C-alpha cells in the first residue's frame, strides 16, 4: 500500500490550514480553488508569520501620501509632487537562475511603482552572495548584475546605487532585493482598490503563459535544497521592452484619468492581483479565464490564474471608457483584454466561457489565512561559522589593505558601471560619488537622496542593535548629502520563522526597526518580507535591508565623500565608539561571536542634524559615514575618492577608551568623517583628527600606527572585478 501525499501539502498548505479552507468554503475546494488558496495563503502573499510583528512599526507621518498596503509607499516632496518607493526581494528565483531572477525582480518592483501612477526614476539594489572564492557565488553575482543591468538599462530607468555583501551564509541562498523610486503628481496617483459594481476588469500587457507557475508557494515560501534545478521552470522570464510599453501606456491612461484603479501582476499572478483588488475595495470580482490572451492554447483555468508571466497589469475601468483604454494600449503596441467585472457579491468567481470553475469568498481567500505567533528562542551562541583569512602577525597596514580588498568593502565599480546610472537626467551624485544617491527634482524645485543598507553579519551578532544600526546608517548617509529623512521602506530577509532561532532573529529585528524609526521620527511606508532563506548549511544571516528616502532643498550644495582640498582639517563628528564586535576585521580573524554595543539613537540623530545642516550650508569639503572597516577604511575611501592623502591621529578615540585596533578598524553607529576648514570643524564640535596632506594614508594609532601609499590602497580597493 502506498500513502499518497495530499495535494494541498505539495502546494505548501498545512493540514490545519486545509481544514480551515474546507470550513470557510463549506466544502472541499476544487483544483482551481486549491491552487489559488495555496498561493494567497503562502508566506509570500499572506505574511502569516510576520504580520503580527509588523504591527509594531510606525507608519504615520505628516509627509506620508501612501502607506503600507498599497503597491508602493509614497511621501510628499512639495509642489504637488510625491516620491514613491518600495523594495522587494527576488531571492529564491535568483538563487535558481540569477540573470532572469534579478531581471524580473527589477521588472516587478518597477510595476509596483507605476501601478500607483508614479514614473519610475531610479533603481537601487541590495545583493548578498557567498564568498567570492566560490564558483557558485561568482556565477550568481555575474548573473544577477547582468540581469539588473539588462532590465534597468533596457527600460531606461537609472540604477543609481545599492550595496553588495559577500558572506558564507548566503552561499546557497543569495539575496536580490530591488528598489524602485518613482515620481508623481500627487493628484494623478491611484490606489489598488477595485470599485464600482459593473465596472470592467481589463488585463493589459503581455499574454499569459506557463512560466512562473507556483513561484510564490514553491520558491518563495520554502527552503532551498539540492535539486533546485528542477525548479527552474518556476522562474519567470523578463521582457523589458514589453514593460517599457506597458509602463508608458499605464502612465498615459492615468494621466488621462481613464482608470478607476490599477494593480500589477506579481507573485501569484491574476489570483493575487484580482483577489487583493477586490479585498481592498470590499467588492467581488468575476474573471473569465477564456478571455485571457494566452501563449499556449491548452492552459487549464488554474494555470491561467496562477501564472506569473511578467509585464502584466490589471485595471478597473468604467465600461464606457474601455474602448478608449484599449485604443491607447494599441497605440503602445501592448495587449489588452476585458476579462471580467467588479461585482457586489463579495466573491472571487472564476469562469470559463461563462461557466463557473471556482468560487470563493474574497474574505476567505485574501484575508482568511491564519496568522501565527512565533516561538522565539535566543540561540546559545554564534550559530554561523568562523573562517580566519588574515594571518596572525599581520601589521596594521596589511590589515587595512586586506579590509579594503575585502569584496564587501571594495569598490563596486565593476558592478555599477554595468548599469545606466544617468538616464532621466536627475542623477546629481552617481554611485560611490557620495554616501547616498542624489536625484534632482526640477519639477518640485528640490532633490531627494536615497540610501539602502543592511549588514547581516552585525544583525546576526545582535538582531536588535544590528537593525537599529541599519536604520542609522541610512540616516547618516542621507545626512552626508544634506538630506532629511522623509520615509523608510524595508525588506526583511530571514530564515525559517518556524524555527526558534529564526523567530528570535525576526522578532528582535522588527523591534529594533520600530524603535529606531520611532526615535528618528521616520515613518515606515511599506515593506516586504522574505522568509525561509535557508540552504543545506543553515539559515542566511538575518538581513533586514533598510531603504530611506530624504529631501534636500538644493542639490548644488551636495559635496562628495572624497577629500577635496589639500590642507583641509579632518574631523570626526558623532557619538562614535568603535568596537571590533561583528566587524569586518573580526570576520577576517575568524573571531565572530554574539553581541554588539547598543547604539544611542538620540545622540546619532543629533549628530545627523549637525552634519546635515553643515552640508546644506556648504561648510564641509567632504562627508563620509564611518561603517564597514571602521575609521581607517573610511579615511582610505575619502583619500582614494579625492586622490589626496591624509595624516590622522586617532588619539581622540583613544580618549574615548578605544584600543588602537578598535580606533582603526572598529565599527559601530554614529561616526562621520568630515573635512573642511579647521575653525568650521571646531564650531561643529568635531574631534579634530588631522589634515588632508601628502600622498599616503598615515594614521597614528599607538603601536598600531600605519602608513599606506595612496596607490596601494587604491589597488586593493579596486580589486573587485570578475572581468
Amino acid at each position: 500500500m502506498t500513502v499518497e501525499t495530499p495535494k494541498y501539502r505539495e502546494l505548501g498548505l498545512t493540514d490545519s490550514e486545509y481544514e480551515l479552507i474546507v470550513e470557510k468554503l463549506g466544502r472541499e475546494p476544487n483544483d482551481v480553488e486549491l491552487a489559488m488558496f495555496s498561493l494567497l495563503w503562502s508566506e509570500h502573499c499572506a505574511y502569516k508569520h510576520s504580520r503580527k510583528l509588523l504591527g509594531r512599526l510606525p507608519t504615520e507621518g505628516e509627509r506620508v501620501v501612501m502607506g503600507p498596503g498599497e503597491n508602493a509607499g509614497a511621501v510628499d516632496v512639495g509642489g504637488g509632487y510625491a516620491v514613491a518607493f518600495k523594495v522587494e526581494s527576488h531571492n529564491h528565483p535568483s538563487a535558481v537562475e540569477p540573470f532572469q531572477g534579478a531581471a524580473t525582480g527589477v521588472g516587478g518592483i518597477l510595476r509596483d511603482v507605476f501601478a500607483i501612477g508614479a514614473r519610475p526614476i531610479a533603481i537601487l539594489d541590495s545583493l548578498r552572495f557567498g564568498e567570492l572564492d566560490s564558483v557558485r557565488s561568482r556565477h550568481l553575482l555575474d548573473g544577477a548584475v547582468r540581469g539588473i543591468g539588462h532590465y534597468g538599462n533596457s527600460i531606461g530607468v537609472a540604477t543609481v546605487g545599492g550595496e553588495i555583501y559577500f558572506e558564507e551564509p548566503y552561499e546557497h541562498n543569495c539575496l536580490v532585493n530591488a528598489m524602485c523610486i518613482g515620481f508623481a503628481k500627487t493628484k494623478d496617483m491611484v490606489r489598488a482598490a477595485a470599485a464600482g459594481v459593473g465596472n470592467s476588469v481589463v488585463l493589459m500587457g503581455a499574454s499569459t503563459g506557463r512560466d512562473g507557475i507556483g513561484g510564490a508557494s514553491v520558491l518563495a515560501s520554502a527552503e532551498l535544497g539540492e535539486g533546485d534545478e528542477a525548479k527552474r521552470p518556476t522562474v519567470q522570464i523578463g521582457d523589458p521592452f514589453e514593460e517599457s510599453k506597458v509602463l508608458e501606456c499605464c502612465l498615459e491612461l492615468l494621466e488621462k484619468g481613464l482608470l478607476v484603479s490599477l494593480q500589477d501582476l506579481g507573485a501569484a499572478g491574476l489570483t493575487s492581483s484580482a483577489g487583493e483588488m477586490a479585498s481592498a475595495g470590499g467588492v467581488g470580482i468575476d474573471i473569465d479565464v477564456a478571455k485571457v490572451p494566452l501563449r499556449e492554447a491548452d492552459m487549464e483555468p488554474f494555470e491561467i490564474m496562477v501564472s506569473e508571466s511578467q509585464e502584466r497589469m490589471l485595471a478597473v475601468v468604467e465600461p464606457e471608457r474601455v474602448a478608449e483604454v484599449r485604443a491607447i494600449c494599441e497605440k503602445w503596441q501592448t495587449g489588452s483584454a476585458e476579462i471580467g467585472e467588479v461585482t457586489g457579491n463579495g466573491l472571487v468567481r472564476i469562469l470559463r466561457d461563462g461557466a463557473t470553475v471556482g468560487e470563493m469568498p474574497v474574505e476567505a481567500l485574501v484575508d482568511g489565512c491564519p496568522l501565527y505567533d512565533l516561538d522565539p528562542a535566543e540561540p546559545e551562541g554564534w550559530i554561523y561559522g568562523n573562517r580566519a583569512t588574515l594571518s596572525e602577525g599581520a601589521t596594521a597596514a596589511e590589515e587595512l589593505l586586506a579590509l579594503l580588498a575585502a569584496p564587501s568593502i571594495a569598490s563596486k565599480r565593476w558592478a555599477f558601471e554595468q548599469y545606466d546610472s544617468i538616464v532621466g537626467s536627475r542623477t546629481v551624485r552617481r554611485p560611490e560619488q557620495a554616501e547616498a544617491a542624489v536625484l534632482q527634482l526640477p519639477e518640485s524645485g528640490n532633490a531627494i537622496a536615497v540610501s539602502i543598507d543592511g549588514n547581516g553579519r552585525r544583525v546576526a551578532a545582535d538582531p536588535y542593535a544590528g537593525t537599529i544600526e541599519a536604520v542609522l546608517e541610512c540616516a547618516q548617509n542621507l545626512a552626508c548629502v544634506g538630506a532629511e529623512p522623509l520615509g523608510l521602506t524595508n525588506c526583511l530577509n530571514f530564515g525559517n520563522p518556524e524555527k526558534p532561532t529564526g523567530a528570535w532573529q525576526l522578532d528582535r529585528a522588527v523591534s529594533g526597526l520600530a524603535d529606531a524609526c520611532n526615535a528618528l521620527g521616520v515613518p515606515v511606508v511599506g515593506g516586504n518580507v522574505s522568509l525561509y532563506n535557508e540552504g543545506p548549511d543553515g539559515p542566511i544571516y538575518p538581513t533586514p535591508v533598510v531603504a530611506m528616502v530624504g529631501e534636500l532643498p538644493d542639490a548644488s550644495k551636495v559635496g562628495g565623500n572624497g577629500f577635496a582640498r589639500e590642507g583641509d582639517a579632518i574631523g570626526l563628528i558623532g557619538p562614535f565608539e568603535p568596537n571590533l564586535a561583528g566587524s569586518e576585521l573580526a570576520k577576517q580573524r575568524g573571531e565572530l561571536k554574539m553581541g554588539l554595543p547598543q547604539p544611542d539613537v538620540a545622540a546619532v540623530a543629533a549628530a545627523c542634524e549637525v552634519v546635515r545642516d553643515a552640508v546644506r550650508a556648504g561648510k564641509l569639503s567632504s562627508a563620509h559615514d564611518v561603517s564597514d572597516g571602521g575609521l581607517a577604511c573610511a579615511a582610505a575611501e575619502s583619500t582614494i575618492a579625492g586622490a589626496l592623502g591624509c595624516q590622522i591621529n586617532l588619539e581622540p578615540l583613544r580618549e574615548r577608551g578605544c584600543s588602537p585596533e578598535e580606533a582603526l578598524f572598529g565599527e559601530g553607529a554614529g561616526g562621520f568623517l568630515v573635512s573642511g576648514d579647521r575653525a568650521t570643524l571646531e564650531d561643529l564640535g568635531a574631534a579634530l583628527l588631522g589634515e588632508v596632506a601628502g600622498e599616503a594614508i598615515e594614521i597614528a594609532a599607538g603601536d598600531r600606527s600605519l602608513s599606506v601609499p595612496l596607490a596601494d590602497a587604491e589597488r586593493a580597493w579596486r580589486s573587485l572585478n570578475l572581468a
Partner: protein
Amino acid sequence: MIWAVLQFPGSCDERDALHACEVHGDGARLIWHESRDLDGVDGVVVPGGFSYGDYLRAGAIARFSPAMEAVAEAAEAGAPVIGICNGFQVLCEAGLLPGALLRNAELRFRCHQVELIEEGTGERLSIPAKHGEGRYYAPEEMLDRLEANGQIAYRYADGHNSNGSVRDIAGVTNERGNVLGLMPHPEHAVDPLTGSTDGLRVFDRVGRVAA
C-alpha cells in the same frame, strides 16, 4: 533652432534629448515613430535606448519606421541630424552613416564618463557613455576614406576607448557633414549639476556644419 526628437517604443533617452535640445536651441518636440511628418523642425535627434527592444540587432527594426523615412529626406535636404547611441546604430542601419557598431570588446554594458577629442579642433570633451554595442567598425579602406574626407567627428582620448572601437572612433558624419552619429551621450552633458555641459558643444558643431 527647433529640434525634433524621435520616439520609438523602447527609446530611453528621448526625454533627456528633448531637454538638451531645449537648453541648446529654441525648442524641441517629440515625434512618434509612426509619423512621417517632422512638423517643420530645423534638426532631428535620433535618441538612445533600445528601439523596439533591440532584440534583433540594435537599430535594425527602427530603420524601417515611417519617421526614419522622414529623417532620410531631411538629411538629404541638408538638415542637421544627430544620432546618439541607439540613434547612431539606427543611422548606420539606415545607411545614412558609414560603418557599424558591434558588441563592446569586453562584452559588457558599461556606463562611465569618457573624454573625447573633437577631430580638427582638438577640443577635449567630458561626456558620459553607456552602451553594450558601441564598438565602431568599418573596413580599412572605408576608414581611410572617412579620414581623408574629414568624416571622423570624435575620437576617444587616450585610455578612454573602452569598447574597442577601431581607430578610437567615437563619432562619424556623412560626407556632407550634416548627419552625425556618436556613441557617447551629449544630451547627458548639458547641466553642471549632473556632470558637465560639454555636450552642448556637440549640438553646436552640428548646427554649425549644417548652417
